[in-house]
């Protein structure tokens, strides 16, 4: 397989500790900034998504295994965790709520042991197709076997059970958030540590050149299988965290839409970088929960952004961030700043024009507000007249023209700066 879009930079030892401390600080301080129950619910979901996307990236970015059915493991882990939570709440062996995600993780791992064996025997397209088949199979079964899956209504449980420990009874969203944040921090650390282990490195080798690996004496199949199990474990933890937060689990947690979302957003974040899925997870929750309320065109924006990212920045948002980092440190960057500003301004103009046109079109077609005029960016627009359309399209065209011009100028100044740099200096 030709060398794809992943690069996987390795951080120096000390730096990793700094990043983990930074993550801990962000996780601890976030609920003070976002203090309403809804905002904290969003933060909780971001934590859950982070673990899920990072576990998916063990397969995609590190192992080169394209899986269309990763939600199967997080979903089945969630179902088992819910069964345990229900059993614990109704008189069975009392399992502390803070251990429910771990239950999910162990069950996710168990399913990965069973299903992963057949999945990872081959690689490439065959593996992708098997994961697709298994995902559709499990989803179709979820509506049939109502004993385990609870049918269409799913299973619901109560996280407020037993006696409170140190005053923590998980009644409030804040307490749930801190539990999830703790699990997220630990899982991020563990998954990063995994990338530094020999198995993690072997996994990268399987991705890059499996044949050569087998020459050295390792079995690519075994490496893939072990990585699959580990990814299943963390996916299950993510599912268990979802059970504690939502207190309900329905068939959508094993659905193709969710698997597709993992794939989409991990890729958008940047599959070639460890931090990519973290960015992608934030994007996943923001677009699903917030963007869909702001605009009816959110799926269209998502699709277009995704296609654009695949074509122009296959390394994802993380690669864009890295690009910024590189040119800003470049000697002679001072000359580049004005053109960067100009590029940003043209992109903003083009974006404004495009989104305005799309919003106008949606409003006209959907008419969800009846005869009510359209409000966009705080102004009322008469969408039935040509005026706003002309304005939107002309802003779009101006922005695109500006982008093309600034791009040329940027290239000119950049090559000048490269030529002027003495050898041996960054």
């Amino acid at each position, binding site marked *: 397989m030709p060398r794809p879009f992943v690069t996987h930079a390795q951080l120096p030892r000390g730096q990793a500790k700094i990043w983990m401390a930074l993550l801990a600080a962000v996780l601890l301080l976030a609920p003070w900034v976002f203090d*309403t129950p809804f905002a904290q619910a969003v933060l909780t979901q971001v934590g859950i998504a982070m673990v899920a996307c990072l576990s998916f990236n063990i397969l995609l970015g590190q192992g080169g295994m394209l899986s269309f059915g990763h939600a199967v493991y997080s979903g089945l882990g969630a179902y088992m965790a819910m069964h345990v939570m229900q059993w614990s709440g109704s008189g069975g062996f009392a399992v502390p709520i803070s251990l429910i995600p771990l239950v999910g993780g162990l069950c996710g791992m168990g399913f990965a042991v069973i299903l992963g064996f057949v999945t990872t025997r081959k690689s490439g397209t065959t593996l992708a197709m098997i994961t697709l088949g298994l995902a559709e199979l499990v989803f179709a079964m979820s509506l049939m076997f109502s004993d385990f899956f609870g049918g269409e209504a799913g299973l619901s449980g109560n996280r407020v059970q037993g006696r409170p420990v140190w005053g923590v009874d998980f009644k409030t969203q804040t307490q749930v958030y801190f539990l999830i944040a703790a699990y997220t921090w630990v899982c991020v650390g563990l998954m990063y540590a995994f990338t530094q282990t020999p198995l993690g490195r072997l996994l990268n080798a399987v991705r890059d050149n499996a044949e050569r690996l087998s020459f050295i004496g390792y079995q690519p199949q075994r490496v893939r299988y072990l990585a699959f199990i580990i990814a299943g474990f963390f996916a299950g933890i993510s599912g268990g965290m979802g059970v504690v937060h939502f207190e309900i689990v329905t068939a959508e947690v094993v659905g193709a839409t969710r698997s597709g979302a993992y794939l989409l957003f991990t890729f958008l974040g940047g599959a070639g970088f460890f931090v990519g899925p973290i960015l992608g997870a934030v994007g996943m929750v923001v677009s699903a929960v917030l963007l869909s309320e702001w605009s009816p065109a959110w799926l269209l924006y998502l699709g277009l952004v995704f296609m654009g990212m695949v074509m122009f920045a296959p390394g994802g948002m993380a690669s864009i961030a890295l690009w910024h980092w590189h040119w800003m440190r470049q000697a002679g960057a001072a000359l580049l700043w004005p053109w960067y500003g100009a590029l940003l301004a043209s992109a903003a103009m083009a974006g404004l024009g495009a989104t305005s046109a799309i919003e106008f079109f949606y409003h006209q077609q959907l008419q969800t507000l009846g005869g009510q005029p359209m409000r966009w960016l705080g102004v009322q627009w008469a969408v039935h007249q040509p005026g706003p359309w002309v304005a939107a399209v002309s802003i779009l065209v101006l922005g695109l023209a500006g982008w093309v011009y600034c791009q040329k100028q940027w290239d000119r100044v950049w090559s000048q700066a490269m030529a002027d740099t003495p050898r041996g200096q960054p």
Partner: protein
Amino acid sequence: MSLSFRSAVLMLALSACGWAQAQKGETVKVAWIDPLSGLMAPVGSNQLKSFQFLADKFSQNNPAGVKFEVIGIDNKLSPAESLNALKSAMDQGVRYITQGNGSSVAGALIDAINKHNERNPGKEVIYLNHSAVDPDFTNSKCSYWHFRFDADTSMKMEAMSSFMKDLPEIKKIYLLNQNYSHGHQVAKYAKETIGRKRPDIQFVGEDLHPLAQVRDFAPYIAKIKASGADTVITGNWGSDLALLIKAANEGGFNGKFFTYYTGVTGTPTALGKGGEGRVYQIAYNHYNMGGQMAQWMKEFQTKYKDDFYTGSAIHIFNYLGEAMAKAQSTDPVKVAAAMHGLKLKSFNGEVEMRKLDHQLQQTLFMSVWQKADKKFPYNPENTGMTLVPVKTFEPYISSTPTSCQMKTP
């Protein structure tokens, strides 16, 4: 002393008046949480428009003098998303939630609202169910904070079987339903009620197909024909119903269809002229009710170029207005107490919110699909056809017993 006593009484009287007037002009926010994307998007957007239309109408004229504001939130037919939507709505100060598309979401909301109300006294929220008809919500899963304004599956089946027992030409029935809770309930109650009223009728077959996935109903029609059935009972909706009847016409099955959801967005267009005189619907309304309803339907059609069929929304606004006037407050705890057992007159006659289980008892209609004419002129989605009432069922006919053990606070 008398001065201070009198002034105290005066103050009290004045403040009482002030309190009684407190809700006049107050805005009551109602959050509508249902799908605006995906499978049910056309139904969802029709219902949101209906609620917003009625909020306008009732804001101008209701016994409590309040203003209604409807906030629509898309839940993408997902229970997890609905919980987010609920939290978002509560953050915006909303204390009345309405939902009805999808029993899975309804179940999740009932659960979440029960837990929230228990954990947060003083911030209670009420759930007004406009269309989720799973009988469990007024039986095993009943809740003081949940009020159902649609007739549930068992009630509709009671009425349907009352109609069918008087048709001697019905001898063999086939049950074809979607394989999820709604479909299972329809099949279960059909067998039970018809078995009770006409034990001579044979159930010659029963099928459960996956929801909204089957495009080709020809195999099912072939099976129905091979079984010799003359009638099909189905709870199918949307494309499942439309394709079923289309396949029946093509496959040469000429029996009757008894359905729940012929009138819902999309099915009239897909039915077209097919199924004339053979497709029946049981519901709490029909297209040609006359009076205020006809006027509003016409206005709705002019404004939105869509058909209004969610009559339960009218019940909801009627109840909110009456209850708020009776309780003299918009506080959900007081309003719930006022709605508990409240009787009033709505568009389809006298209705009662039964105390036992918060299931609205109302009149039901059996209607049949046929050409629109001068007497029954309203034609949905410009098909030239309409649903014509053939029998009216008083509330006591469709009233069903309940096993609800409601915990009142």
